[in-house]
Structures are given as structure tokens and as C-alpha cells.
């Protein structure tokens, strides 16, 4: 029998339906693979007993011919999602020992569709970071290494655990979340597909909040089809999240027609940034050529507000975070470091509980919301946000989707000394605009660079038009060829 972990979700779904193997066998293969991949540090919490229990239930369903869309498919869940009875820490020390009594809507949707939970996946603390190095549980290693090298590389972030686990075949697919690029950038760094759907497509209920107006759930998977299958199950309107949108969730797989003839693809000139590596530029051109060859029309467009997106994002996101993270005070749950009085307890708890990146963003956020600075920072950032949306509205009058690089580079080395946080923030330069505008964006593998590391392209779509993204990404994937698994070194 072939290694069951090599199967995509679509393939596993077929194998289970044909009874070539059982959900228990499939799950067992993954549990073994996970135990053999501790070096990657992708899992924060493993739940093998729960997985086998769920797999058994799936097998019963499969036997009765009552299979649901994700019946028996083993998935990893980003630690940001609250999962009933299973630790949910957002990879922060401050949520030490926290086990929610409730299940997030998105993960519940997956279980309701028959998926099996393998465990919780590492992330940057509170999703703040682009490398997964800010996780309290230590950095995650990218399963990809440069050819002929043994140097560890970052999987990107914040959904680095999700991306690494999917790339390393230690889950069939994973949930992730994206506030400024946290799905798309790690997907690009690990040769996986990641989609951040339109804001409001998935419920945020039960997702530990970073920046409420930007956070959105999405899947990371091995193929475009797998991502389509997962998003279909994850998305829903939710009465418990009034920012979720009551629109029917289409059959995204049906959008994978492979046909982009006559589709108009926008190429924004502002995304040709200074100092962009040649290989990124070349990869982008390659993507343009592939789509052109498939019959799409290439249109040069302008998104003039692009340069303001990153600074505006680093005002809005920390502002919301500074308030969202106020609840972690040692009073109700998680870590408590006792003090002489209540203020001393707050200070000691938060000093010990939060890592330096989280503290930095809380400080920035507190500052930009302060009396006397609010108008100059927060209000202006919100104005820029409106202008960014207008940019896209205008562009989408003439194009169907926009093609850009996903990241300014391929995966870089772990523990790279970055003294200037702004340098780290630049990782999000191609992705934050999409969050600021609330639009959907997908990152799809587009070959490898000279060192043999995966590269990714991003497609940006109109609000709630994830179907066009899946269709176009499918064409790019077909042209680039589905990446083989990274050579196993762990």
C-alpha cells in the first residue's frame, strides 16, 4: 500500500469512498508521520486519541454510506482556534493551560463535515510575526531546505505550523488565519496553497482575536482543489459573528474548470518594489506568461495607494490588538503571576506572559489610540484604508483578478538576526493591502528559485469572488506542475 500521507484530500476522499483504506488507517499513518516529525516543531498539541476516535466514527459513517464532504480526512488546526477540551494558546505563554469549553465555528464546521482532528499547529504568538519564531513553544522549521544545504529555514508566519505541516505531509490540510498575510506568505514559503477568503466569509467566533477588522480564517492545503474543498466546509454565515456575511457558499471545486480564456488579469505596477530580487520578478513574469498562454488577457493597472498600505496596516492592526489583548490580565484564565496588588499582578502577568513582538505591538497600538494621537494616526490610517479599497474598486472595473508576487523573497534562514522590526514587517508588503480592503487573496506555488526553494504567486479577487481565484490558481498550478513533497531530512 502506498504511503497514505502522500494523498491529497481529494485523493484520500476517493480512496475512502472506494474503501481502498479506512479512515482509521489514514489517521494512523498521519499519527506516525507526526511522531516522526518532532524536529519540525509544527504541532503544539497532538490529539491522537481524539483523532482515532473521530476516525472510527467516520469509518462507521463510511460503512453506512453516510459520508460527509470531509469524512475521515485528518486535519491540523492552528493554535489560534478554540477547540473544546483541547488547549488553545495562540502560542502565547499568557494562555498557559487554557482549555476552552467551546469549539470555534470554523473548526466545528469541519467536524460537522466529518474531518478528523490531529492536533494544534504552531504559529507566531497571537499571529504576530512572519516566521513563527515568536511562538512561545519555539520556532517551526520549514521542511524545505535549499539544495545541498542543511541550514534550517523559516516556514513563514504566522501560520507557519500549518504551512510546514501541510508541506511535510503530517496533515492532509490545515486551518490557518490571515490578518496581514499569515496564510499566503507561509504558503508561498512552503510550496503550499493558501487562501484568505473575503472578510466575513468565515466566522471569527472562537478564533483568538489579533485584529478583528482584518482577521480571517482560511485553509492551507497541498493543492488548489484541496483548498477549495476545505474552504467550502469552513465558510458559513454565523449568528454569533455579526461581521460574517449571509451569502451562499458556492461549490468551489466546481469553479476549477481550467478555463481562463478571455479573463482579464491585472498587473499592478506599484508591486514592482525597489530591491525586489530578480528571481521574484522573473517568477512573476512566468506567471503572466502562463496565464497569457492559457488565453487570459493581461492588463496593466495602477493601485496608487499601495505604498501607504503597510504603514497604515501597522497602525490599525496594533491598535485593535492592544484592545483585544487587554483581556489577558491574569484575572480569569491563563497565566497569573501574583503581585502586591492588582496593578502589580497585571504588570507581572503581562510582562511574563507576552513575548517581545506582542509587547511591541501593544505599545504601538496603545500609542496610536492615545488622546492627541488618535486623529493623526488611527483616523488617518482608516482614511487610507478607504482609499485602498477605492483603488481596488476602480481596478476591478476593468479586470477580473490581479496577479502579484506573494512575497518579496523565498523562505529565509531561521534565526536570522533581524534588528529592525520594520524589515520583518516588509514580508507582508504584497499581502496587507488585501486585508486592508477585505478582499480574497490566494497564494499558489509557482515553481522554485535557483536554490530549489518554493516560490508563490498571489491572486487578488473581487469581494466574495473566491471562485475566480480558485479557477485562475488552478491554471497556474497546472502550468507550474504540482510540487513534489520536500525531501525528508527530519
Amino acid at each position, binding site marked *: 500500500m502506498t504511503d497514505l500521507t502522500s494523498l491529497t484530500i481529494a485523493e484520500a476522499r476517493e480512496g475512502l469512498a472506494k474503501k481502498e483504506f479506512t479512515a482509521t488507517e489514514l489517521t494512523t499513518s498521519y499519527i506516525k508521520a507526526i511522531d516522526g516529525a518532532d524536529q519540525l516543531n509544527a504541532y503544539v498539541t497532538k490529539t491522537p486519541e481524539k483523532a482515532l476516535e473521530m476516525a472510527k466514527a467516520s469509518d462507521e459513517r463510511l460503512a453506512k454510506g453516510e459520508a460527509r464532504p470531509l469524512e475521515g480526512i485528518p486535519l491540523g488546526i492552528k493554535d489560534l*482556534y*478554540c477547540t473544546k477540551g483541547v488547549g*488553545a494558546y*495562540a502560542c502565547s505563554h499568557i*494562555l498557559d493551560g*487554557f482549555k*476552552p*469549553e*467551546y469549539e*470555534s465555528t470554523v473548526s466545528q464546521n469541519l467536524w460537522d463535515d466529518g474531518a478528523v482532528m490531529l492536533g494544534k499547529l504552531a504559529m507566531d504568538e497571537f499571529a504576530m510575526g512572519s516566521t513563527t519564531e515568536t511562538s512561545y513553544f519555539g520556532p517551526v522549521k520549514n521542511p524545505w531546505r535549499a539544495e545541498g544545504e542543511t541550514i534550517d529555514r523559516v516556514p513563514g508566519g504566522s501560520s507557519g505550523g500549518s504551512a510546514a505541516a501541510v508541506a511535510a505531509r503530517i496533515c492532509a490540510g490545515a486551518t490557518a488565519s490571515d490578518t496581514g498575510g499569515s496564510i499566503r506568505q507561509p504558503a508561498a514559503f512552503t510550496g503550499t496553497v493558501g487562501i484568505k477568503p473575503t472578510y466575513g466569509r468565515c466566522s*471569527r*467566533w*472562537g*478564533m*483568538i*482575536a489579533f*485584529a*478583528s*477588522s482584518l482577521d480571517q480564517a482560511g485553509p492551507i492545503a497541498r493543492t488548489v482543489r484541496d483548498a477549495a474543498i476545505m474552504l467550502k466546509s469552513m465558510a458559513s454565515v454565523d*449568528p*454569533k*459573528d*455579526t*461581521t460574517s456575511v449571509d451569502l451562499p457558499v458556492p461549490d468551489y471545486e466546481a469553479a476549477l474548470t481550467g478555463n481562463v480564456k478571455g479573463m482579464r488579469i491585472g498587473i499592478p505596477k506599484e508591486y514592482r518594489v525597489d530591491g525586489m530580487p530578480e528571481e521574484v520578478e522573473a517568477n512573476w513574469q512566468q506567471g503572466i506568461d502562463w496565464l497569457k498562454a492559457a488565453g487570459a488577457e493581461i492588463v496593466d493597472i495602477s493601485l496608487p495607494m499601495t505604498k501607504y498600505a503597510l504603514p497604515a496596516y501597522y497602525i490599525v492592526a496594533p*491598535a*485593535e490588538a*492592544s*484592545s483585544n*489583548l*487587554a*483581556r489577558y*490580565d491574569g*484575572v*480569569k*484564565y491563563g497565566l497569573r503571576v501574583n503581585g502586591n496588588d*492588582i*496593578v502589580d499582578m*497585571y504588570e507581572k502577568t503581562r510582562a511574563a506572559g507576552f513575548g517581545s513582538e506582542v509587547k511591541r505591538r501593544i505599545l504601538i497600538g*496603545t500609542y496610536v*489610540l*492615545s*488622546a492627541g494621537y*488618535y486623529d493623526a494616526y*488611527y483616523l488617518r490610517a482608516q482614511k487610507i484604508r478607504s482609499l485602498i479599497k477605492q483603488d481596488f474598486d476602480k481596478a476591478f472595473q476593468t479586470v477580473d483578478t490581479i496577479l502579484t508576487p506573494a512575497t518579496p523573497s523565498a523562505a529565509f534562514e531561521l534565526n536570522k538576526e533581524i534588528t529592525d522590526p520594520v524589515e520583518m514587517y516588509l514580508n507582508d508588503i504584497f499581502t496587507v493591502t488585501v486585508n486592508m480592503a477585505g478582499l480574497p487573496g490566494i497564494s499558489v506555488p509557482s515553481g522554485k528559485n535557483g536554490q530549489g526553494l518554493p516560490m508563490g504567486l498571489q491572486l487578488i479577487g473581487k469581494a466574495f469572488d473566491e471562485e475566480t481565484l480558485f479557477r485562475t490558481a488552478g491554471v497556474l498550478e497546472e502550468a507550474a506542475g504540482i510540487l513534489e513533497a520536500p525531501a525528508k531530512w527530519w
Partner: protein
Amino acid sequence: MAEASSKLIKGATGDWEVVIGMEIHAQVASEAKLFSGSSTKFGGEANAHVSFVDAAMPGMLPVINEECVRQAIRTGLGLKAKINNRSLFDRKNYFYPDLPQGYQISQYKDPIVGEGEVVLYMLDGEEVRIGVERLHLEQDAGKSMHDQHPTMSFVDLNRSGVALMEIVSKPDIRSSEEAKAYMTKMRTIVRYLGTSDGNMEEGSMRADVNVSVRRPGDPLGTRCELKNMNSIRFIGQAIEYEARRQIGILEDGGSIDQETRLYDPKKGETRSMRSKEEAHDYRYFPDPDLLPLEFDDAYVEELRKDLPELPDDKRDRFISDLGLKPYDASVLVASKRLAAFFEKVATGRDAQLAANWVINEWLGRINKESLDIDQSPVSADQLGAIIDLIKAGDISGKIAKDLFEIVWTEGGDPAKIVEEKGMKQVTDTGAIEAIIDEIIAKNPDQVEKVKEKPSLIGWFVGQVMKASQGKANPQAVNQILKDKLGL
């Protein structure tokens, strides 16, 4: 202006005017909290009414309770205020153990209700108009308990997330009497509307009172805020104390520090709680978890249609349709149930007579015995029957008071009681004449005197009433006496 000057406070160096603005917090009458489905019941075991949202568990989101929105709109309509079809919820950020989210969801720049007005009918007949600046919805906090454990404080989150309406007045109030009347009126309005139970003892209505003083005609002085006042009487006392405290400082050449103060009812004084420098920077910003609150005019009109008659409208109707004295009308509309009781008594009867009986006898007795209106042993029908007996001439006003006492303590049908106890007054002129003839015959001296001094007829009336055991009809007695004595 005589009225204005009477409100001024006399200082050592001249007159001072006190300027007051109030922020009233009224708990919205609703089954569930503002953003969660938890019960709003008062009391209950600590932390019995707490959902994951109320405890600010990670990943929890607020969902607006539409009934609270409707209640706020109803209250706005009751205050004749502008209803804003689009309002925003903001986060007010500060750390406190009984504030689990680390922020209170409130409305800062765009409240649900804008400017309105409240009319006060003062005891001296003056009408005072107090502007309402705004009304907004916000969450209540939980309760910290510091007396449960030697080294720890406990937190009860039952109230955490309960919906409050904050009603902000303009600085239009000019005396402690007006402040008390404003608070009373506001409580009457929300109770009429059913939008808050207005229960100050249970904390479901409380006020922050801003007090400053100035020389008449001068610009506004520096204000101090008296926090968390939960008794109308204390509001009056606190303002009196605070105004005199400020006047004292200013007359001594000092200046007022803007600060938050607490009133200590035991000592009858206010003391500093925190200064302006210690004030929080709340870092308000729109709550990204909540969409703007929007509704159309039709939604508001639907609510307007179902509003009950408001106290001022009822007062006007009592005066114009029933012919009540304005003062009596004001007294009767102060409570919806009192007004309803009165109306029941007054239906088909002399309204002013009914008002006199409801206010003087019935309400007087209710208040004297500290009863709730619903606990009255005398029903509207019983009181009406007593009035009917007076009107029919069956009993005198004096006998009626005795009858009221019997009905109050023993109950029963007033007409039957009168019958059984022989309380009916004697209107048979023959019987009265016989008594009078006897008295005249026995008292020739008095008969001589009354001719000189007609007011002595009172003595004869007294004798007749005594002889008839109070049952003789006084009008008839008077008439017959006058005839017989030739007056």
C-alpha cells in the same frame, strides 16, 4: 426675575448660581444582556448569569440584543429626542478586574439618541425645561468584592454586560431641587415606558452629578463630578454641600480643581476620589467586532405607535379634560400606577373630588404606611363607592373618613357597611326638626345670643350633630336652623 434669584445661593460676598449637569445610568429592562444571551436577573448566586462572552473568553464576539436597541429608541422618543438611524459602538479601554474584556463597549461619538428635553413642574408652579444632550447604550461592569477573603478580592460578573442607557443632560439644572425633580422625572418617564425599572436601591438607576458655581451672568466655573449617586435625597444633599464647598473656596480666593468626588451620606460631605490628572485615557475607537447600528424611520415609527401615554401628556389631559388643579395633576401622574388608580376612581365621578380623595386620604395613607400602590387594602372600586356615598348625600365628608378607616382596616363593601353600621346620615327633615326644636327649647340664652352673633349657629349645629350621633345631614341641619332661628 424673582424665580431665578430665589435659586441663588447667598455667599459671604454675594450671590452665587449653581450649575448642574447629570449623567443618569438606567439599566435597560430586558431579559438578556446587551451583547450576550445571559439573564439580567438581579441577585442570584455570584457568577450564575455569566456566558463565555460576559467572561471575555478568547475568541468570543458580541452580538447586539435588539430588544435593548428598541428600549433605547423608546426612551429617546419619550424624551422627545432625535433618534439617530445610524450609531456606532466604541470601545472604552481600561483595566479593572470586574471589566473582563479590558474595555467597555459604549457609544462615544455617534450615540443612538441625540438631543431631547424634559419638562419639570416645580412645587411653586414653575415650569423648568432641561435639555437632554444624548442617550447612548453601554455595558455595565461586574462587581468586585473585597470583603470575602483576607488576601484576595472576588469578582462577580452577573452584571457584566448588562445593558445601560446613559442619559446626559445639558448643564441646565440650577438648584438641588431641580436636580431632584429631574431625576424623579426621568425615573417616571422610563417607568411609564417600561424601558427601565428605575429601581435606585438595586442600582438599576444611578447618576453622576456635575456641579459648578459661578456669579450670575459669568461663564461656567470649573466643575466637580459627584460619582455614583443612587438616592434622590442624597443627590439633593450632595449638591447643597458641594455648591457651598466650592463657594467657600472661591470666596476665600481659592480655585476649584476639576475632580471626581464621592458623597458620604453618613458625614454629609463630598470627598475627592481622583483628580483630572489621574483621569484615564480611555483610547476610544470603534469596536471592530460590531457593525454600525442602523435602522430606518419605519422601524422607529412602529415603536412610536406603541408608546404609552407619557406623564406630561397625561397631566395635560387631567387638567384640560378632567379639570384637575395643575398641582394635583402633577402629583397623580408621578407614577403610572397611581394615575391608573386615580382614573379608575374618577371614571363616572367628580374628578376633582376623586383627586382629593386619592391624594389626601388614600395616597397619604399609602405613604404613611410605606406601602406599594399594589398593596393597598382599599381598591379603586371601594374608594369610588365611598365617594358615591358622599355624592348621594348618604354620608358626610367626616363620616366618609371614618368609613375609609373601616374599609382600610376591615375591608368590605362601603355601602353595606354604612347600612349595617347605621352610618347613613339623617336627611329626614322631620326628625331633624324635632331635634332642633328640642335644643331651641332647652337653650333660650343661646337663642338670644345667636341673634346678636350669627356665627354662633356653629354651636347649634354641633349640638344637633351630637344629638344625632353625627348622622344628621349637615346641609339640612344648617338650613332648618337658619329658618327656625330667623337668621
